[in-house]
């Protein structure tokens, strides 16, 4: 049996099992971390987004082997942070979440964007979110939420 070790939401974890299994399944099945959702299973919708060594990754396309020795942050780990709270409030105030299935991915994409660009323009936000599909909102209220978080949480990123 092969083993894969990585850091998950701050703790060192080891998984036994095939190297080629989808990391999304490992998260959901082995760790009961279900914030990352499967929308398409082919890296198109972004609902399964997680951060691996700070990079925004679709976990449905990620083989377990590729996280060996890396640091993974899922929404369950991120939601304890001040940055998350700022984003949560902004999403609530702007009505940025409707059915909610894309929202965990949107939050991870927002964190990735803001950690690289503290004050993004509309154009930059639209392109940063282009890998995260939402069928409910038409995106405008999500864009407003990210701008609100950037403004109100300027010191956090």
């Amino acid at each position, binding site marked *: 049996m092969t083993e894969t070790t990585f850091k998950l939401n701050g703790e060192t974890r080891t998984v036994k099992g095939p190297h080629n299994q989808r990391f999304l399944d490992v998260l*959901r099945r082995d760790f009961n971390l*279900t*914030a*990352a*959702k*499967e*929308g*398409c*299973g*082919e890296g*198109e*919708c972004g*609902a399964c987004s997680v951060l691996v060594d700070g990079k925004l990754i679709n976990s449905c396309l990620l083989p377990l082997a590729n996280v060996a020795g890396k640091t993974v942050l899922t*929404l*369950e780990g991120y*939601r304890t942070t001040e940055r*998350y709270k700022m*984003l*949560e409030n902004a*999403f*609530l*105030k*702007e*009505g940025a*979440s*409707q*059915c*909610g*299935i*894309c*929202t*965990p991915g949107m*939050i991870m994409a927002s964190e990735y964007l803001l950690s690289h660009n503290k004050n993004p323009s*509309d154009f930059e*936000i*639209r*392109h940063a*979110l*282009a*890998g*995260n*599909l*939402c*069928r*409910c*909102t*038409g*995106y*405008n*209220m*999500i*864009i407003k939420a990210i701008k609100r978080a950037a403004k109100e949480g300027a010191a956090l990123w």
Partner: protein
Amino acid sequence: MLKTDISRSIDNVEGKEKISGSAKYISDYAIEGMYHAKTVRATIAHGNIKEIKLPHFPEGYDSVDYSDIPADNVVGMINDDWPVFAEQEVNHIGEPILLIVGPDKTKVAKLAQAVEIVYEEKTPVFDFKNSVKQLAFKKGNVKKAFQEAKQIIKHTYETGYQEQAYIEPQGFIGYPEDAGITLIGSIQCPYYVKNAVMRTMGLDEDNVRVKQAFVGGAFGGKEEFPSLMACQLAVAIQKIQKPIKFIYEREEDMEVTTKRHPSRTVMEAAIDASGRISAIRSHLSLDAGAYLGLSEVVLSRGMLAVTNAYTVNNLDVRGDVYRTHTVPNGAFRGFGAPQMIYAIEMFMHHVAKTLNQDPFAFRMAHLVKQGDLTATGGIFRDPIILRDMITHAVEASDYHAKVKKYNDPNIFKGIGMSWFLHGCGFTGSGEKDKIKAKVTLEKTKDDQVHILVAAVDMGQGAKTTLRKIVAGILELPIDVIVFDNPDTRFVPDSGPTVASRTAMIVGGLLARAAKTLKEDWITGESQTVSKRYEQPEYVAWDQEKMQGDAYPAYSWGVNIVEVEVDKTTYEVDIKDIWSVYDLGKALDENVVLGQADGGQAQGIGYGYLEVMRHDGGRIRQKNMTDYIIPTAADMAPSHNHIMDNPYPLGPYGAKGVGELTLVGGAPAVSLAIEQAISRPLRKIPATPELLMEAIEHD
């Protein structure tokens, strides 16, 4: 709750659960020892099953097919033509034949792949040939108007498939419970599912329980289709006696679930001596796919929108539903109206152009006003503020100046406008005769008030708005009003979550219940109040003749879209969007603005971006890479404006919202593209290929 304007936004009551990722969707459920199910499907469009060769099943694995159905092999809907599992004949590629069930998901999938089916193929039909439902209605004297016409103008409009493309695929988990079956699903209509399962299983109502999980988008796609999955799963649970999880993967979902009906609409107008339309003849064709499902009702809503927000005194309107050997089509936000509103909005513009009249002035000259007769001879009783809405949209977008500027064929820019109405609630006497909605408010001893309805919050904010209504009337804080996901063991049948009826009809009933509860309120005691739907007496509908008031009320909207078309690639860039809505009264501004943005994105996407086709009955676009829905980069900023026009019978004056925001997107974007390329368009989606054809072959 403080006595403030109901429209003032509050935080979505489910917001924190959803944003933090803790909301439980159907794929997040797991039951110890659960099995998994996978469907084996027809690979031909039409034929008979000659033989099914099953692989050897390891212990714990089994198949489930029609022979395991205890009662009716029918998915109970309006018509009885849709089987739970194919018996002998298959009528579309992807038609379910059997399920493979077992403990390991991967093994189940492998066994499903190993099933061999031998067919005797028959010739499939894909064209509008085999009409299985016909509807018609008339108004005035069409024959005379055409005889006296100065000119007759006729065009045909076509629309393609549209896939709901909810981000969460369809799914259920179910288990045996007592003597019956319990199903948890991603669904819009708990009682549709329950009634269908009772019929297929021959179980009584105490033995089928349906619960709603968080729903990751639906848009009509989870209206009737889940009943099919639920019936199959119930048969499997009865046979195997284990909890079973049954979730579609994206490709399967896209290939086999119901979509918006492809359509063809013929519009023919008689023009009188004053240059106005005196009569319209119209024929709407819908492709039902292999089974009728809800197609007849979709056809009816489409036909009823024939004159949209215009008054035409003489009408001859006909429609056919055609059966083809393709995946069955069904409910999708707008329900037939998007097809017809696309046709009539384009047609009004094209007729004006043919008559050398200014399209805006021509359309305004036909605008409906309060007191006018509807297409079916009902009356527009309530105040209509569409003229003011159009003025607002025109000013906000600088419409007239842009129309003038973009008439220059060299700049490849365009601006398009649509205006439209949408009937709220079920068509005709549906609410009174079929749905008979019932709602209950249950007050506990600790003075919490539970909303007991079968309405589902699928992202449209039903929990937020319905709780606001009850809290507002009881003058209580919103957090003492409880609204759990519906469970048919506890909630009455308040009807399906469809047809822009939740806020107006269900909300209206809850408002009545809350008023009664307030009058009878006894602190510290448990109390229950129920209300049933009562049709306003003046609303009269003859279903046979399609005459009278098709809807108790209408919501109204205006959409303006500005585009730029790339001169080389013919790609369309959406630059800006303006909208104005009359939905009576917004129950929550953020909820309504969210519906506006989302509905517009779907409507505009339908008009220019979302391509789905079949080839010999096989859907070609099977995933999010092939089937393109708008991304954040595709969509433009929006300027949405709500104008109050309270409806006396709606809660706080509210009417329907959800569908209204979709129905005008396609004509608005198409008219904008048409102006940008200086050529008429009569087909959606207006893809670069279609534009190239129009430009290079005219």
